[in-house]
């Protein structure tokens, strides 16, 4: 609840700053269709705040409802379809990456040898820029949603691996001794102690990964020539930026919204899975 309020306040502040800058140093402005001919000529003139670089918020809002092409459907419809398409790729990538991360984390937690042997490669994998990886994946797996999902998974698995490992190692040594005193099997210790103790850590990783998987999908769409998703839309409206800057901005907002929605879904699942725990009760 508190988070939601602070988010709204933050968005309002950004909007205020945005229009404030345009008010001080943007292009001359005249309200359309108004009988009084209301006008405003900013005292200064910054390049970054011109209508081309930073369209008015109401122009961006209007761009959603206007058709993207002459006689075409409104932009919202196009963006909605694109968002759903990208979201689907991201979810598939997130699931693959998340599972891979969980499995690696569990393996590493049980074997120092494996951790020491493999962890450097896992870390190294993340230092290679995704922009270099993406075209390779597309060459190997052919362009299509599978390769996009793989790219999204590539960004997803790393935080999950690290946090799962940390979480599985987080239980108090006394809690482990307690389990040993009951002669609990490794398996029982994993499911009844280590995994529940790791859940808050894992959810933190899932939240990072959820947004990362959206970014991964958008980036993955670019070199694979997929035009149905948000990546395709960004590419498209980027080409026609001069004739309609607000359309690209609208697409950027749509991408952010998809990321936030995914994040919120994970937060809801987290709240359900961790109900009863103290840390959560303190947050509400």
């Amino acid at each position, binding site marked *: 609840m508190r988070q939601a309020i602070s988010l709204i306040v933050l968005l309002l502040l950004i909007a205020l700053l945005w229009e404030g800058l345009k008010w001080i140093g943007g292009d001359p402005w005249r309200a359309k269709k108004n009988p009084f001919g209301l006008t405003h000529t900013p005292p200064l003139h910054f390049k970054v705040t011109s209508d081309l670089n930073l369209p008015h918020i109401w122009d961006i809002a209007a761009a959603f409802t206007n058709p993207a092409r002459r006689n075409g459907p409104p932009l919202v419809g196009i963006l909605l379809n694109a968002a759903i398409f990208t979201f689907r790729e991201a979810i598939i990538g997130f699931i693959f990456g998340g599972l891979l991360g969980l499995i690696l984390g569990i393996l590493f937690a049980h074997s120092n040898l494996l951790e020491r042997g493999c962890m450097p490669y896992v870390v190294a994998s993340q230092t290679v820029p995704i922009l270099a990886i993406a075209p390779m994946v597309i060459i190997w797996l052919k362009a299509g949603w599978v390769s996009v999902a793989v790219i999204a998974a590539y960004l997803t698995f790393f935080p999950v691996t690290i946090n799962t490992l940390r979480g599985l190692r987080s239980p108090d040594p006394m809690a482990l001794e307690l389990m040993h005193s*009951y002669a*609990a099997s490794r398996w029982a210790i994993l499911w009844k102690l280590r995994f529940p103790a790791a859940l808050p850590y894992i959810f933190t990783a899932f939240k990072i990964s959820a947004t990362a998987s959206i970014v991964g999908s958008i980036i993955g769409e670019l070199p694979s020539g997929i035009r149905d998703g948000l990546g395709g839309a960004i590419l498209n409206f980027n080409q026609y930026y001069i004739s309609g800057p607000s359309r690209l901005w609208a697409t950027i907002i749509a991408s952010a919204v998809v990321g936030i929605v995914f994040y919120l879904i994970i937060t809801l699942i987290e709240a359900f899975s961790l109900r009863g*725990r103290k840390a959560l009760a303190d947050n509400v």
Partner: protein
Amino acid sequence: MSVVALSNVNMTFNSSSANKTVALKEINLTIEPGEFISLIGPSGCGKSTLLRLVGDLIKPTAGDILVNGKSAHQARLDQDYGMVFQAPVLFEWRSIIKNVMLPLELRGYSRTDQQKRARELLALVELNGFENHYPWQLSGGMQQRAAIARALAIQPKLLLMDEPFGALDEMTREYMNLELHKIWQETQTTIIFVTHSIPEAVFLSTRIVVMSARPGEILHITNVDLPVPRGEHTREEAAYFETETEVREWLRAAKQK
């Protein structure tokens, strides 16, 4: 048959490295069924180590440990132990009743049996009504009582307690002592109890083992000849004060060694 038989038990940590620690030296001790044994001694003398050796959480460098006539390892596999630590170590994601059910779950009891037994135990430690609370919603003393209920769940033949009331205030501690005494009487369990408090040791024990500073050795064993059941009145008996004085003197000697 004795519940615990320790013969010539030695424990050295990091024996190969330069900073090796001789924690325990030549420990010999036999504990009979139904006894309440307190271990008392200066900090770092190896009380927790001794408890963990008996519980097969660590292995001795030398010597034999028999529990109910079996090796400590076999006794652990047979789930002969209940353990209570200085902290309650309740799992925060489980409600109180689910925490008490944990050892029963591990043993494969049916769901209904688990719940029935857990309710009985929570009644025994006077926590009925708190079944569905989470650990953080309970006070420290209540959490520790839940931990005791959990330790008793599988009717352990031997209860190992490492300073279970160390973190509680004096009033709560005295109350918990009464409770534990009652539980010990009702369940007839053999208990090994580590403490720093002389009054607590005298009130609860049948025998008090005084250990010397590191390397830990058994310095003296005091028999507590106070009638059971004990209660508030026990703390006013002459024999109670005599035993307290005796233990205090031995403890002073232990620290000076």
